[in-house]
């Protein structure tokens, strides 16, 4: 009983304006279905809650199976065995040929830094030219800009209005001294999925390393590094219901790369550091769960049976999310006048919806939605000191005021149809209210 009271008080503290779906201003709003606390969380692209099954798998590795994976005694070997099993799960998940091609890291940012800087420094004798897209995540963009300061040259491939890259443009940009092409698989902001396979083919033909940042797409859409001709791939744990602080970098065998961290030679000498075993184990479990949701596969001791291609099956979950996403997009464009979709209508992540609304600012929408218990995100970087909005939206040809009025809604494992209905009920009111304050209303 005491616990219940404590919980209620906690809820009041976190959301002083909401009582489970009710709203302070006296607006009548039907009951929402809050998951994880009281709010409706719709920012799964930012991060996800750890799946309880993942947490359960991780716990023993904090206290009982605590060994260091490089120790020779059985405490260490126990941890090592679990790690190698996880490596196998990951290799299968992206259809890597060898399990040694998977390197554990601490974050997608680290993986991307290692990919760009590692390739650049190992291959600078061959050339000093790197190609990225104009809609990369900040960690790829800023790594490339840093390399530019070190004497490398960077070409940014332009995208079209829907955020798509034309593979031809990549081909045109490749020069004799090009050493690396890095293109994001699916945009973290607008969700547009790039024609990775075609770009991979071009890079293979031209003999240039090809890296893709799949932090947002891994676990949501099929990935096959052999079929897609990918040399390096970044994937992250906390976007697929695993813990934060775990990620991987796939490095194809034979790739010339320098490590960023020097030390005891962990991870085949490419990433020295005692491995964050619980987090990596959790990442592996999270992948296994994604698989099961996809396909009724029994996960065996070594991960999945070799014939099963992991993310073939994401279908089940991704079909459910696609249906919810399409409903959200259709209804919002219908219910809110002067609202527009960012990104591609079809070639987009199953869980991503991104809009811009004329005459209002995104940050104000977010704060207003927050008071209704809805957690979403913005493309507007009103917070950045340059005062300029997201480079991704600007690269898609949005004018600054349009980019400032944008909103990203991302769905996930615990999003239910009634959550979508709740957002569809609240968002039009919020936009209408803010437009009433705006000088540009009509």
């Amino acid at each position: 009983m005491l616990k219940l009271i404590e919980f209620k008080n906690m809820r009041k503290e976190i959301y002083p304006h909401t009582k489970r779906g009710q709203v302070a201003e006296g607006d009548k709003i039907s009951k929402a279905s809050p998951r994880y606390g009281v709010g409706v969380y719709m920012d799964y692209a930012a991060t996800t809650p750890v799946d309880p099954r993942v947490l359960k798998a991780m716990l023993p590795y904090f206290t009982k199976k605590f060994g260091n994976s490089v120790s020779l005694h059985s405490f260490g070997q126990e941890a090592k065995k679990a790690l190698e099993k996880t490596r196998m799960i990951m290799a299968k998940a992206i259809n890597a040929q060898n399990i040694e091609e998977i390197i554990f890291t601490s974050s997608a940012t680290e993986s991307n830094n290692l990919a760009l800087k590692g390739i650049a420094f190992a291959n600078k004798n061959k050339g000093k030219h790197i190609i990225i897209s104009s809609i990369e995540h900040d960690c790829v963009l800023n790594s490339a800009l840093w390399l530019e300061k070190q004497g490398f040259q960077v070409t940014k491939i332009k995208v079209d209005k829907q955020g798509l890259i034309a593979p031809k443009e990549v081909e045109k940009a490749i020069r004799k001294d090009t050493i690396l092409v890095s293109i994001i698989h699916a945009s973290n902001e607008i969700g547009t999925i790039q024609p990775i396979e075609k770009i991979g083919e071009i890079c293979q033909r031209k003999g240039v390393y090809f890296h893709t940042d799949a932090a947002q797409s891994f676990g949501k859409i099929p990935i096959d590094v052999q079929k897609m001709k990918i040399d390096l791939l970044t994937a992250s744990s906390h976007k697929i219901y695993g813990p934060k602080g775990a990620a991987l970098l796939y490095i194809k065998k034979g790739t010339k790369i320098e490590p960023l961290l020097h030390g005891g030679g962990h991870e085949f000498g490419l990433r020295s550091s005692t491995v964050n075993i619980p987090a990596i184990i959790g990442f592996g479990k999270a992948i296994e769960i994604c698989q099961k949701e996809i396909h009724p596969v029994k996960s065996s001791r070594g991960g999945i049976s070799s014939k099963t291609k992991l993310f073939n099956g994401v279908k089940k979950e991704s079909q459910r999310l696609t249906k919810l996403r399409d409903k959200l997009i259709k209804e919002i464009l219908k219910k809110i006048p002067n609202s527009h979709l960012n990104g591609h209508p079809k070639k987009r992540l199953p869980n991503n919806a991104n809009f811009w609304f004329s005459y209002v600012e995104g940050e104000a929408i977010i704060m207003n939605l927050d008071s209704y218990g809805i957690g979403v995100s913005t493309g507007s970087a009103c917070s950045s000191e340059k005062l300029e909005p997201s480079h991704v939206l600007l690269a898609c040809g949005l004018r600054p005021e349009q980019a400032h009025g944008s909103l990203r809604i991302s769905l996930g494992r615990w999003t239910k149809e009634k959550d979508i209905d709740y957002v569809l009920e609240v968002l039009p009111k919020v936009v209408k209210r803010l437009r009433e304050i705006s000088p540009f209303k009509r």
Partner: protein
Amino acid sequence: MPIYSKEIIKHFKNPKNVGKIKNSDGTGEAGNFLCGDIMTLYLKIGKNKKGEKIIRDVKFETMGCTVAIANTSLLTTMVKGKKLEDALKIKKEGLIKRLGQPLPPFKIHCSILAIDALKEAIYDYYLKNKLEIPEDLEKEHQRITKTKEELEKRYKGFQAFEKEILK
């Protein structure tokens, strides 16, 4: 919730003096599309018992973030009924203090914008009525106009890029 103080949330959720004044005595605009905050302030000028000029009524419209909306709302409540000279003395520090919480550095410009809009509105009043414009206000007006012009130049770059990508 939240990263903002109660005062900010209060003004954001229930902003005071929202709207337009038809036939206003002075109108001021501040902000730009680049930072995403744009506001318009409307003034109605009257006289108090001593015959000094005061702001009899004030209304505003803002397109912008939480802090920008809260700031303009707060500013309008502060200047209503005030003498023009006193209204011009309001500094960003005073406004921020009233918001009850130190603002993150990049949000301070929201307070400056609100004050700029007020200065522009009073300037507009002086200009319309062919009154003598105080030296300080003239300087401020020139500063605001100059920034506006600079930002407009940069904004044109974005318009050109949009055309290019639409081809």
